[in-house]
């Protein structure tokens, strides 16, 4: 009896050991499925790239924006899905010793202007009003398609802004400003109108972190080149052109993006590490608390590229031109559709949780002096009129 027990126990452990790899395989499959569940559910990509400063010595802001434009286009987003706003023309500025070029590296290694740059909002059209109209979609009906942000609730949008900024504002064209509150409200309008699935906001200005402090809409991830109180610095000047060619943060972001191709699996955590304080002198910051997914699951190409999800099937379908068979197969398809169980979509946006927030508990404060004084007065008047003897009933 003991032998069979031993044998039984040993057999079960052996079976257990044998089944362990199968179990782990199944567990990893479940993990993969869970990861698939957390991958982005977007179907199209948009980019809004804004350079807000004019004048020749702000050459670097135009170069910043054009570098991001170049990366975004290279990774697959077409011009029809990019809204490019440049506040001044550097390529054809009379002060440009290399006309029709905008360089982004020293020694003129990389010309980001090229032949196929499509600028949608140019020169004096880059205003706060136009920018907000683009974001919220409140555009006059005469606006051409290339100037509209036609995103839907499954669009991932990249918004890149650069220029001169301060604590809580960004300067447009040396004459007006957009505040961080306006920007946050614009994004909330976009959320309410379901104009984005997820939004990545990158800003390269002085004190850039102040611009994303006020965001309150969900699914926004924000990156900035410097914290409040710090200045974003520019990269080296070019002696031939005579101005600074790029800002440091965007320079290193460009270097990082040059290594990305549409199949890259690099995620946002790598982007957060770009340009540490030793290289950038300012401290880049990021904000992920409004974002649903973990940044390490967010691919760079989710925002910077336009990657279509393609499922390859090995099934073959034979098509026969007989109309009778087609009719019957059509009816069969209908029946099949009725028989199929309804499709279930994952709960992407826990709207109920977001909209119906619990009311914040207000701290109790003792009543203020005025209230106390008022009540004391009322009580004194009462006892004066009706006599002091009533007080005995209270105390």
């Amino acid at each position: 009896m003991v032998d069979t027990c031993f044998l039984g126990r040993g057999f079960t452990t052996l079976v257990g050991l044998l089944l362990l790899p199968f179990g782990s395989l199944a567990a990893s499959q479940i993990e993969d499925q869970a990861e698939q569940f957390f991958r982005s559910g977007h179907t199209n990509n948009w980019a809004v790239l804004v350079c807000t400063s004019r004048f020749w010595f702000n050459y670097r802001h135009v170069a910043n924006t054009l570098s991001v434009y170049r990366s975004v286009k290279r990774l697959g987003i077409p011009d029809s899905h990019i809204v490019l706003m440049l506040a001044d023309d550097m390529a054809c500025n009379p002060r440009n010793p290399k006309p029709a070029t905008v360089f982004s590296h020293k020694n003129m290694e990389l010309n980001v202007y090229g032949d196929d740059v499509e600028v949608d909002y140019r020169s004096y059209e880059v205003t706060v009003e136009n920018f907000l109209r683009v974001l919220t979609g409140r555009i006059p009906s005469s606006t051409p398609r290339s100037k509209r942000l036609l995103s839907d609730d499954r669009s991932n949008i990249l918004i890149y802004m650069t220029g001169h900024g301060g604590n809580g504002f960004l300067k447009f064209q040396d004459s007006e400003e957009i505040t961080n509150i306006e920007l946050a409200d614009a994004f909330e309008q976009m959320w309410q109108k379901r104009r984005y699935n997820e939004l990545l906001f990158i800003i390269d200005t002085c004190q850039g972190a102040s611009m994303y402090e006020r965001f309150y809409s969900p699914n926004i991830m924000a990156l900035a080149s410097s914290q409040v109180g710090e200045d974003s610095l520019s990269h080296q000047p070019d002696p031939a052109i005579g101005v600074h060619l790029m800002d440091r943060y965007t320079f290193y972001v460009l270097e990082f993006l040059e290594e990305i191709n549409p199949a890259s699996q690099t995620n946002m955590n790598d982007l957060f590490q770009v340009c540490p304080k030793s290289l950038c002198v300012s401290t880049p910051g990021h904000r992920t608390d409004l974002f649903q997914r973990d940044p390490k699951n967010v691919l760079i190409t989710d925002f910077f590229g336009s990657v279509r999800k393609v499922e390859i099937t090995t099934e073959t379908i034979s098509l026969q031109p007989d109309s009778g068979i087609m009719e019957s197969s059509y009816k069969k398809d209908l029946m099949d559709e009725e028989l199929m169980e309804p499709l279930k979509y994952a709960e992407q946006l826990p709207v109920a949780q977001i909209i119906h927030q619990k009311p914040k508990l207000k701290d109790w404060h003792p009543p203020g002096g005025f209230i106390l004084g008022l009540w004391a007065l009322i009580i004194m008047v009462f006892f004066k009129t009706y006599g002091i003897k009533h007080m005995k009933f209270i105390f």
Partner: protein
Amino acid sequence: MGLLSDPVRRRALARLVLRLNAPLWALPVAWLERTMRSVGLEVYTQSFSRKLPFPDETHERYMVSGINVYGILRAPRAASTESLVLTVPCGPESTNSQAVGLMLALAAHFRGQIYWAKDIIFLVTEHDLLGSEAWLEAYHDVNVTGMQSSPLQGRAGAIQAAVALELSSDVVTSLDVAVEGLNGQLPNLDLLNLFQTFCQKGGLLCTLQGKLQPQDWPSVDGPLQGVQTLLLMVLQQASGHPHGAHGLFLRYRVEALTLRGINSFRQYKYDLVAVGKALEGMFRKLNHLLERLHQSFFFYLLPALSRFVSIGLYMPAAGFLLLVLGLKALELWMQLHEAGVGPEQAGGTSGSSPPLPATQRVGLASLVAPLLISQAVGLALYVLPVLGQHVAAQHFPVAEAEAVVLTLLAVYAAGLALPHSTHWVASTQAPDRSWMALKLVALIYLALQLACITLTNFSLGFLLAATMVPGAALTKPSGPRPLCAALLVLTSPAATLLGGLFLWQQLQEAPLSPAEGWRLFLAALAQGVLEHHTYGALLFPLLALGLYPCWLLFWNVLFWK
């Protein structure tokens, strides 16, 4: 039967005399035009002429006529709305030929670049500042100094900045920069900072007021040298003299500097390539500008090239000096009021009001006469020297320029004798109050004038205030009269000018003997009158029509009987 009786000999002699009187040096206009055209500029010329009010002894000219030549380098891709100017003033005594050569080389180099967004005008003027004034007036289509200039054929847009270049040799040991302009106007400090940046970058030795930059600020030597440089700048700014062609550009709100190449006995010399590189850098930086220079200060004093004193720091000093005058005037007003109230109370109820207005009316009448006479003497000082030069030259064996200066001094000294002749106008009733009223009016007049002068030309206002305010405040008819008179004369505007000249030469380490000083003083007087007529400098009319009558009022107060 003499040399002149034969008409042929007379004609020969006349021709010889004419040839001797012809200018020995004239601008090579044709060669300049040809060279500039070969470089690729659009070349234009402008002729001008001017008859000076009296012959200029220092520059030896009387009837001036000349031709300016300028070439415009058009910006290849811009709309010719703005321009920069590189000007080289040439004249008979300073031919400035090296600067012309450098300018042509720069023009050839600039022509090969495509990054110009503003047109560049290369201007060569004849008779240095007179030619610059003629060109500027024709460019801006104004006529403020009575110059006859032909209109300009070629124009390039609003001038944003200008650099004037003066080089006497082809190697320089240092570059001197001059910023003070006509009537003490200064260019924007950013232009000076630009020059200083390129001096540092190119390793050039740059000086201000001819003095090197002090290195040791912590010890006493550095600040002492800074004070010397500052005093030199104050004296130069107070004179209102345009120290270079840039001074005339400033009047049209064009920021301008003059760069002078100095060849001293130092060992290390820079060739023109180094100077040219600094100029090229300056012009490229000015090309990048999108607005006129306005971010930095327009009113400043410079103890060194890299340091400046802003108006907020030095203006309170002048304010306090003028406050002294105000307080003294207030004290006199109160004294007059007491004196006016006194007899009223003593006189009782009856007939108290009629005597008061009578004395007041008489007081006013006694004021008007000295005022009018002083102002008339000032007017004479302004008008007589130039008007009466021919009459004086006829009656006395002097040249016209000397006649002008001597008339100036004569009228000035005649004013000193005034009190003896104006006493019959003064009233006999209450003489004390009359002189107090006159001093009160004179104090307010002086304070107003000095305030207005200080606001536009701080150095002039401060110098005059520092010398005139003590004398004006302390003048009284009582006390030791000869001593007070001597002090008052020493603080008069003319004496201030004389003292300033001596101080200026002392600071430049070339002290003068009294005789030389006196000659320099006479030359400065002539230059002052001439500059007023040719460039519109305001020192002469301010002193003659404003400060001298005011000072005469104090002289009257001192000699009140």
